């Protein structure tokens, strides 16, 4: 009898304990979710506004910079045109039986005569540095203004955060996303322009643009950004047709068409920079959400009032 009563009381006590525990856990999760939502309310409007401003401005600036560079390239295109219309080049070109080989042959000649792959990459890096600095400035302003707002929200729950702690935690997440994207790109055969280590976040994110790994068997040594290869393909197709046909004033026709390469490269570069900035913004948003979640989890325990 006593045993039965003991069991009954034990079960009731257990149920009360489980119920109370459940309530505490439920309440804790609700408070955490509420605090996270408030932290995100503080962060998201300015993050979204910054992102929209960056996407509307920076890709266009990058496009104009590369257009200006190719303007200079066009001033030196005469040597390239006389080279590709020479008999020497014609015999080499005739050995290319498929369009991709012809493209590689023309890109190789372009890099040798007009703009070397090193020069193109250096220019892309310079622009990535300029665009990246703007992105970093925007991100830095965002994180430094975010820290005091979050501190105000979190001060009720625990000691205040040091501003640099929030910034470094956010940066750490974005940095690891950049490195992961570089690794994924490399393993998928799309080596990015970014080197082994990522330095400044903005510049590194822009330099995730993929490189063409050599140009087949015709020019395996040429390593240029993929957007240049894509842009040039349209122009080379036309130039190839002129070189095969060799009728009329084909030199003037080639010269005129090569000038278009600047606009096409600029267009492709703008798209690429836009993609890279959009990726960076996705990582930044993910970092903000993750840190908001973590801060709420660190500060709100079961017995937090």
């Amino acid at each position, binding site marked *: 009898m006593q045993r039965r009563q003991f069991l009954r009381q034990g079960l009731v006590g257990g149920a009360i304990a489980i119920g109370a525990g459940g309530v505490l856990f439920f309440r804790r999760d609700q408070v955490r979710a509420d605090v996270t939502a408030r932290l995100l309310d503080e962060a998201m409007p300015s993050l979204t506004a910054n992102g929209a401003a960056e996407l509307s401005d920076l890709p266009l600036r990058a496009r104009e910079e590369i257009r200006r*560079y190719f*303007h*200079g390239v066009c*001033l*030196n295109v005469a*040597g390239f045109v006389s080279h590709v219309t020479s008999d020497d080049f014609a015999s080499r070109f005739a050995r290319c039986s498929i369009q991709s080989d012809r493209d590689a042959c023309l890109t190789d000649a372009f890099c040798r005569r007009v703009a070397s792959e090193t020069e193109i990459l250096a220019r892309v890096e310079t622009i990535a540095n300029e665009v990246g600095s703007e992105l970093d400035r925007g991100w830095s302003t965002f994180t430094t203004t975010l820290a005091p707002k979050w501190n105000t929200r979190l001060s009720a729950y625990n000691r205040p955060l040091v501003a640099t702690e929030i910034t470094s935690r956010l940066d750490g997440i974005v940095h690891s996303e950049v490195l992961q994207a570089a690794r994924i790109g490399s393993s998928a055969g799309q080596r990015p322009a970014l080197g082994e280590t990522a330095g400044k976040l903005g510049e590194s994110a822009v330099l995730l643009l993929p490189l063409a790994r050599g140009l087949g068997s015709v020019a395996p040594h040429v390593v240029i950004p993929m957007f240049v290869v894509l842009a040039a393909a349209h122009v080379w197709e036309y130039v190839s047709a002129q070189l095969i046909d060799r009728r009329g004033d084909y030199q003037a026709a080639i010269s005129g068409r090569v*000038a278009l390469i*600047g606009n096409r490269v600029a267009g492709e570069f703008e798209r690429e920079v836009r993609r890279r900035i959009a990726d960076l913004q996705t990582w930044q948003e993910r970092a903000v959400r993750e840190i908001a979640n973590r801060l709420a989890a660190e500060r709100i325990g079961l017995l937090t009032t």
Partner: protein
Amino acid sequence: MDRVIRVGVSGTALVTIAMVMGSGCAERPVKTPAQKFRDDQKHTDTPHGKIVPESVQDRDGKITYQTTDGTKWTVDPPRSRGDGTAEYGTPQEQK
């Protein structure tokens, strides 16, 4: 006597060559960077349109010009490449 004739002929030939070369040089004035640019780029098309030949000028050691989209540019005179051809750098837009 033969020697006198030989010296005379050689001297005349040298003087003639010198005069021809001298007159050739005098008739072919050295082009300014702007004139060379105008000749080199008369058919050039750029991402900003064609170069307007009448707009090409020498200014403060640089070449200035306009493209058909109305933009004004400044570029350094070309530097010589290893293979003897000239190479222009990236132009700057004039604001």
